[in-house]
Structures are given as structure tokens and as C-alpha cells.
């Protein structure tokens, strides 16, 4: 289980996360919502160790990972689908996927077929450079790349951005499937309310660097949440 | 100002491209000053070296010279290697009436009241060397290869004129220039080889400068140009440069200087011994510009003693006719044109990195500031003796200096 307790984060002088607490359990999909600029990405960044937190603790599978460098976290089974795709532009699609091998033992270093079942375009484009793909193709690649690492915690930052509806549906199915398998915790940031609502087992809403609502999805009051999402 | 020491400025690059050559001269100066102090100094005072690093940067030479003269108030400076560094310092020493001893062979065509040239002028190096090749080795075809700057250009111009005067056909002269630090000599060496295969004895007169020599000689060796096929006579390659090259394939190639470390004279043996003791390294070599500094420094010391002061004007006047035993067994004398008399030696490279003298002038040759082979310069006169103060003119130019 991932737990964030009282996480604070600063960019220079600006206090972006102000004591955030969050949990993501294995076998469940935790959805994080909030308006632009409230700190969702920053929180995921804190979980990944992209930016050092200025206070609080993050634990994963019982260990304190607050100060671990990013790649160590990845090696502990945390995979990240960042906002803005962050594809390696000059690596081919295959090579992009293979970067995920870095946290796998040698025996497990192969590309699972499921990935291509989920994103058939990638199979056709294995030799095209990542940077040449269209926006949506890149987004698919980013998700696939995270799955290559066989994660136990999957962190997704607006994974549906720029993806065509039919594939969004596929992604939704996959996330649900992965979530229900029970061995993976999923932390999902999503603006698209219906998508989030349909997927979430748990939810949390952020505003101005704080968690303002949280709980099980079944108990979520849609109107309340929507209020936090409107300006 | 009754300073309690006499200050000697040392203006040699200790970093940058010229450090390769100039660092040694700084060490040599320190050694000689140290030696002098051990013998009781000068005019009852200790001599204090002031070392600066002009870093192979020409404007910095001027800056440092000014600093030495104005801030450190040195009584004399020993320094410079390249002509351009000297040219850069020249206005400064003239402006502030300083004294500079310049120890390197150069292209001539200069005469300054404030500079003493203890290295060779073209007539003390190039012309005798060509004479030797022509008369003793029977060379009929000539390659004049140089780095593209003023010293080689001038020297080659003088030589070309000289050769043509001696009846060499222009077709038998090949002139080639390369950039500074030229590292790829394949084409040129193979051209030389071709040029040399015309059936006439061919020689290369090299004014190739500095770093470029190492790859040049390596290429010569590899393309199999042997000294007895096409000898190369160099004017800028001395013991110091050879120390950086494997000389075994180069045995027999030549150099023309006024001093070789291999000279068999007691003075030289003593000098080398001191040098090895001073540098604590018995492998360190000595070379021609070091000897030039040796002569220049001793002349200056004598002149100061004679004048009883380090005052520049007085010392200058005392310099003329000053005689100093050089390291090759002769006695060099300072001429009124600020050049000295020197023997001209031709040496062949030996496997141990030394030169063996194979020819030398009968007596000593006096340096010419103005070459006889350049029409405009032939008529010029260089004579700085009091009161006819005239360095580059046909008639007196300066009024007698005040107080003299």
C-alpha cells in the first residue's frame, strides 16, 4: 500500500502541496481529481521522487521511500505514466519500451504480448522513433512503457489525454482489469469526470495543494466533487 | 630610489603554446641570477628575479612588460620568443626607456635603442647554412619550407634572393608554407620527395616553427626520407625540440645554430653541469637561446659593473664592445647595432638527440640588423653609439640624450 502523510512540497518560494495525505491500496483504483494547477502532478511527482518533498512521509509496501532516488522507487515496482507523455524522442518505439527492462531481472526482459493487444498501433510502429508518433500514439506508448516494468503500483497522470475514444475504452478496461487482479495499486489522476467515476474504487479531490475530499467511490457525492472542479 | 635589490624581469610564457620553448629560458635565467647572487651579487646588491607569465598572449606581453617596468621597476628584462611578442613589447620598452634582451634567432629588419638582440640575425644562421649545403653537400635543388609567418617569410625571401644570386634556377626552388601547428604533413613530405627525385641533390631548408616540427619529422622518418637523400636543415629545431622526438630515424638531418649542447668547451661543460645541478635533472638539455641569454646576461652584468649603475642609458652606453666568453669557446662582442658576434655552427642530429657539429665558420660573424639582400634595407644603418644615435636611418635621428 502507498501512503502519503502530511506531504509538503515547495517550488522555490511557492508552497504547492500543503500537508497532503493519501492512500492507494493494492487491488483498488484510486482516483485523484482537481482543477488545473492545484498540485496533482506535483503530488505524483513527490511519489515518484521527481521533486524532493519539503515535509511529510511517503511509504510503499511498508518501507519509507520518502528519500529514495527515483530509479530505486521504480525498482520497487512503481511505474509512472507522466503528464505530457515524456517519450524518449530519438529512441524507437521498441527501444522506448525496452527502457523498462532496467528494473527487471534479466530473465524477465521481454516485451509482453498483452501490450500489443491493447495498443495494436505500437506493433506496427516498433521501428519508428518515439518522437515521430502522433500525440495519441505517444500517450499509448507511455502507458505501454509503464506496463513493461510489471509494476505493483501504477501511477497515471491524465492517461487519456489526446487518446481516441475507442482506445480510452480499452484503457478503461485494462485499468479495471489490473485493478481487480489484486496485486497492483493504481493511482490515477483524471480530469474527465465520468471516466474517473466509472473506474474509481477510491477517490480524492485536491484543491490548492490540499486534499479536500476523499473516500470510497461508492460514497462519493458527485455534486460536491463537481463543485471543486469548477471555478 | 635606493632599492636594496637589483630587479631583473623575466618575460617568458609559462603557459599556452609557447611554454614549450620559453619555460626553459625562465629556468636558465633563474639559474644565472642565483649563480650571480652566490658570487656576491651585483654592485653589492642582490639580484632579484621578477617572473611573470605572459601566457603566449601577445597583448599580455605588452601589459606584463609595462607592469614590470612601471610597477615592479625592474632594471632590465630578459624575454620574448616569437617576433610578434617582441613587436608587442617594443613600444612599451621604447616608451618607458627600458631594456630588453631578446635571445632568439629572428628575421632581422629591426633595430631598437632599447632592445639587445642576442639571438642570430639571418646572416648568422640562414646564409651560412645555405653556403654549407651548397658548397659542401653539393645541393642544387632547394625546398624552402616554413610556417606561414614573418620570420620564415623574411628568411626565405632573403634566401631566395641569395640562391638566385648564386645562379640557382627559380625552377629549382620550391617554397612551401604551412599554418601554425600544422600536424598533417603527408602531402608536403610526399611533394618534397617528388621534388627531390629530379636527379639533382636536394635539400630542405626548414623554418617550420614550434609544435609543427614533431609531426613533420615523424612523417619524414616514416616516408623514409633519409638525411643522405634529402637533408633537412632547420633553423628552429634545437635540443629542446629534439627531446620530444625519437631521433633515431632522423640521424644526419641538420640544424644551424650558434651553439650546440654537444660543443666541447670547458665553459660549456661547466654551464651544463650547473644547469643539471640547478634543475636537479641530468637529462635536461641546453640550447641556443639559453646560450644567448647566458651571453646577454653576462654582458649586462659587466656593463652594469662598468657603469656602476643600472641606469638604462648608462648601461646601454657601456654595453657596446662588451666582450663575453660564449659557450662554444669563442668570445662574443656586443656591436653598436645591438647584435652580437657569434660563430655559426651546422650540426647533424645524432641518435641520442644531440647535434654533432659538422661545420663551423672560421671566426665569429657579426649580426646584421638590416639585411643586405633586401633592397630597401640594404641602405639602412644601425648604430646606437653615443652621440650618433641612429637605429634605422641614414642620418642621425635622435638628439644626444640628456645627461649623457
Amino acid at each position, binding site marked *: 500500500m502507498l501512503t502519503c502523510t502530511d506531504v509538503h512540497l515547495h517550488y522555490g518560494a511557492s508552497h504547492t502541496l500543503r500537508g497532503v495525505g493519501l492512500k492507494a491500496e493494492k487491488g483498488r483504483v484510486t482516483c485523484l481529481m482537481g482543477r488545473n494547477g492545484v498540485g496533482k502532478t506535483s503530488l505524483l511527482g513527490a511519489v515518484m521522487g521527481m521533486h524532493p518533498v519539503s515535509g511529510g512521509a511517503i511509504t510503499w509496501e511498508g518501507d519509507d521511500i520518502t528519500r529514495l532516488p527515483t530509479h530505486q522507487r521504480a525498482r520497487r515496482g512503481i511505474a509512472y505514466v507522466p503528464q505530457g507523455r515524456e517519450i524518449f524522442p530519438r529512441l524507437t518505439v521498441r527501444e522506448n519500451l525496452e527502457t523498462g527492462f532496467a528494473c527487471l531481472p534479466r530473465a524477465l526482459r521481454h516485451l509482453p504480448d498483452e501490450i500489443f493487444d491493447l495498443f495494436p498501433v505500437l506493433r506496427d510502429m516498433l521501428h519508428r522513433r518515439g518522437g515521430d508518433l502522433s500525440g495519441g500514439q505517444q500517450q499509448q506508448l507511455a502507458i505501454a512503457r509503464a506496463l513493461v516494468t510489471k509494476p505493483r503500483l501504477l501511477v497515471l497522470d491524465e492517461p487519456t489525454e489526446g487518446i481516441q475514444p475507442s482506445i480510452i475504452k480499452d484503457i478503461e478496461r485494462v485499468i479495471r482489469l489490473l485493478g481487480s487482479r489484486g496485486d497492483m495499486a493504481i493511482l490515477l489522476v483524471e480530469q474527465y469526470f465520468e471516466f474517473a467515476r466509472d473506474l474509481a474504487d477510491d477517490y480524492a479531490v485536491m484543491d490548492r495543494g490540499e486534499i479536500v475530499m476523499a473516500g470510497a467511490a461508492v460514497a462519493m457525492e458527485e455534486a460536491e466533487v463537481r463543485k471543486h472542479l469548477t471555478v | 630610489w635606493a632599492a636594496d635589490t637589483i630587479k631583473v624581469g623575466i618575460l617568458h610564457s*609559462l*603557459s599556452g603554446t609557447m611554454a614549450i620553448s620559453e619555460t626553459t629560458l625562465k629556468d636558465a635565467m633563474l639559474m644565472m641570477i642565483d649563480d650571480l647572487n652566490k658570487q656576491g651579487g651585483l654592485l653589492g646588491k642582490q639580484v632579484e628575479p621578477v*617572473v*611573470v*607569465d*605572459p*601566457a603566449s*598572449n*601577445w*597583448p*599580455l606581453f*605588452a*601589459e*606584463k612588460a*609595462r*607592469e614590470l617596468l*612601471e*610597477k615592479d621597476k625592474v632594471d632590465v628584462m630578459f624575454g620574448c620568443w*616569437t*617576433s*610578434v611578442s617582441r*613587436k*608587442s613589447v*617594443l*613600444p*612599451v620598452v*621604447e*616608451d618607458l626607456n627600458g631594456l630588453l634582451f631578446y635571445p632568439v634567432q629572428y628575421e632581422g*629588419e*629591426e*633595430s631598437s635603442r632599447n632592445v639587445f638582440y642576442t639571438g642570430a640575425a639571418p646572416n648568422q644562421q640562414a646564409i651560412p647554412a645555405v653556403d654549407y649545403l651548397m658548397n659542401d653537400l653539393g645541393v642544387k635543388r632547394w625546398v624552402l619550407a616554413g610556417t*606561414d*609567418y*614573418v620570420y620564415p*617569410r*623574411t628568411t626565405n*625571401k632573403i634566401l631566395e634572393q641569395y640562391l638566385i644570386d648564386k645562379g640557382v634556377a627559380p625552377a629549382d626552388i620550391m617554397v612551401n*608554407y604551412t*599554418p*601554425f601547428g600544422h600536424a598533417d604533413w603527408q602531402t608536403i613530405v610526399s611533394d618534397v620527395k617528388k621534388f627531390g627525385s629530379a636527379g639533382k641533390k636536394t635539400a630542405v631548408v626548414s623554418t617550420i616553427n614550434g609544435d609543427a616540427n614533431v609531426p613533420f619529422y615523424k612523417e619524414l622518418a616514416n616516408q623514409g626520407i633519409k638525411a643522405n637523400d634529402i637533408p633537412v636543415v632547420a633553423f628552429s629545431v634545437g635540443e629542446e625540440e629534439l627531446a620530444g622526438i625519437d631521433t633515431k630515424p632522423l640521424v644526419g638531418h641538420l640544424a644551424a645554430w650558434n651553439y650546440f649542447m654537444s660543443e666541447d668547451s670547458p665553459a660549456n661543460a661547466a654551464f651544463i653541469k650547473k644547469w643539471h645541478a640547478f634543475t636537479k635533472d641530468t637529462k635536461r638539455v641546453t640550447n641556443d637561446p639559453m646560450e644567448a641569454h647566458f651571453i646577454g646576461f653576462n654582458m649586462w652584468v659587466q656593463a652594469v659593473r662598468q657603469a656602476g649603475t643600472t641606469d638604462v642609458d648608462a648601461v646601454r652606453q657601456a654595453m657596446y664592445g662588451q666582450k663575453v666568453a660564449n659557450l662554444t669557446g669563442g668570445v662574443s662582442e656586443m656591436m653598436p647595432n645591438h647584435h652580437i658576434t657569434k660563430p655559426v655552427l651546422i650540426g647533424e642530429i645524432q641518435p641520442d638527440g644531440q647535434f654533432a657539429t659538422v661545420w663551423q665558420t672560421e671566426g665569429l660573424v657579426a649580426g646584421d640588423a638590416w639585411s643586405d639582400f*633586401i*633592397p*630597401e*634595407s640594404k641602405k*639602412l644603418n644601425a648604430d646606437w653609439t653615443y652621440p650618433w644615435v641612429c637605429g*634605422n*636611418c641614414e642620418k642621425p635621428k635622435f638628439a644626444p640624450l640628456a645627461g649623457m
Partner: protein
Amino acid sequence: MGPITRRLIALESKRGWAVLLAVFAFAAVAVPLLNVLLPPDHALHVPTYMVQLLGKFLCYAMLALALDLIWGFAGVLSLGHGAFFALGGYAMGMYMMRQIGERGVYGNADLPDFMVFLNWGELPWYWWGFDSFWFAALMAVAVPGLLAFVFGWLAFRSRITGVYLSIITQAMTYALMLAFFRNEMGFGGNNGLTDFKDILGYSLSADGTKIGLYVATVIALTLAYLVSRFIVGSRLGRILLAVRDAESRVRFIGHSVTGAKLFAFTVSAMIAGVAGALYVPQVGIINPSEFSPAQSIEVAIWAAVGGRGTLFGPILGALSVNGAKSFFTGAAPEVWLFFLGGLFVVVTLFLPKGLVGLASAARRLKRPTLPVTKEEPRNA
């Protein structure tokens, strides 16, 4: 008061002007006075060689300023700025060579000495006109400007950016260096132009001339600074910054990237040319080594040490690096490179914004944003 005047005044804040004036007054008035009025043994006396040294450094500062205009603001790292500097220097050097007249060693009023002894028959055409100071002064600006314009036009039009641009500017200066080394070029080859006697009739060895040149340099630097300030403070300056960040995006909002860069590059080259023209009479020599790529890289180093993109920083950087160099080569001639090299490393690691980073870090506590922009939102 016209809008331009208003903008000129708005270039600096009140404090900015005060500081600028103070520095200017100190440099242009106090330093010469301390030299002339105080006796040489006075503690505050500034010796003439020091004045001359400062003059030389200020020329370097101007060159660094010129580079900052194009590098700091448009992101175009020119590694060939030494070329513009040297060309300006050669223009002035040619004028001073012509001034020597019959006082050359060969007494030939028609030809410079180096041409005489290499047997040149007559003065090459590109030396014509350099008998006139004003022509030379014009050329000192026009030649670098024109070269920059043509070169820049070719390069920017072809969208050569980043290191590619840096390298071709380097190739340019390198090629010019090799060309000027050639004696056939008629610029004195490696020895360059030396042995100058006087400028505008004043003897170069006279203290008065030295101080005059120094003051001229201070004034020129100040003007160059103000011109640069004006440019970077204008909307064009903002476009340059935008070009630095995302060049192609600028095109999509309709601004001409080529035009903006070309303008800055040309102005920058002209400033460098002026710096070179002032430099030569003060150091007494101009030779092709000023074209050497290492020299141009060093200019970038000065700018970086001082703080890129601040105009003032590069000036500070040039002064301090050269001051340090001057000091260390005298004080620790054998090991000074350790000090200088170490200085560069320390500055990068601990002063990421250069020397001015020190000052502005302190100032930022009081002033929240950039001077040019802080007004806008309030009015909006």
C-alpha cells in the same frame, strides 16, 4: 518629451540610473583625476599603466557586452565574436599604420614597413582611405557590421541554430585567422600591425593620450550599454528572449525570427568592432591571434562568469576575469592556471547566475519581478 526620450529614461529605474551615473562618474572622471592630480607615491594614486590596463579591460568588457546581447538574449552563442572585435581593431590599426608615414624604419611614406621589406610594389586598394581617421572609424563599425549582416543573413535564413551556429561562427573566425596570418593578405601576417606612433595627431606614448583613450572607452562602453539596454527592454528584446526559448513558436505568431536575430547580431558585431577599434591604440598591437577561436570562447567565459543575459554581468565578468588573470600571471606565474580554472569551476557550482547572481539574489528579496514587466500587469 517625446516617447523615445521617455523610454530612454525608463531604461533604468531611478536607482539604476543613480548607480550607472555613479559608476560612470567614477570611471570616467575620478580615475583620470586620481592619476593626474595625486602624486605617484600617494596611496590613492592610480598609475598610468593601471589606467591603460583598465582601458584594455573595458574594451574586453564591451566585447562581452556585445556577446551578451546576442547570446544572453537571443540564445545565439557566437563563438566568432573575436572576429568582429579584431576587424574593428584592424581598421583602427590600419589608420594608425598610415599615420606613421615617413617615420617607419624604411622611411617610406607610401607603404607600411612590412610591405616594404616583403617587396610590395604599391598600397593595395583595401588600404585606401585609411589615412583618414573618420573613414577608419566608419570602417571599424561598418566592416564588422556588414560581415555580421551577411553571415547572419545566410545563417539565420537557413535556420542554423544552437551549436551549429556556434561552430560556423567559430569556423568563420578560424578561417579569418588563417587568412590574416597569410602575409599575402597585406595585413602584416603574424606580426600584425605594430609600431604605432600617434592617433589624431596625439602621440600614443603621451600620458594625456592614454587617459583620453581610456575616457573614450568608458564613454563608448556606457553608450553601448544603454543601446543594448534599450534593445532588450523593447518589444524586440522580448522577441529575442522568446526566440531563445522556442524559436519556431515565434514564427507561428508572425514575428520574423531572422529579422530579430539579424538585427541583434549586427548591432552586437558593431559594438564589438568599436571595442576592437578602441583596444588597438591602447595595447599597441593587433595581430591575427585576436581571431583565434580560443579568444572568442574566452569571451563567452567572461559573459558566463559575470552572468549571462544581464548586460551588466558580462561587463563585470570581463573585468574580473581579466583582472584575475592579470593579477595571477604576475603573482603566481607558475600555477595561476589552477587559480583561474578553479575560479571558473567554483563560479559555476556556487554561483549559477554568475557574479551578478550574487547581487540580484539579494535584491530580489525586495523587487519581485523583472524591471521591464513589473509595471504591465498593474496597468492592465
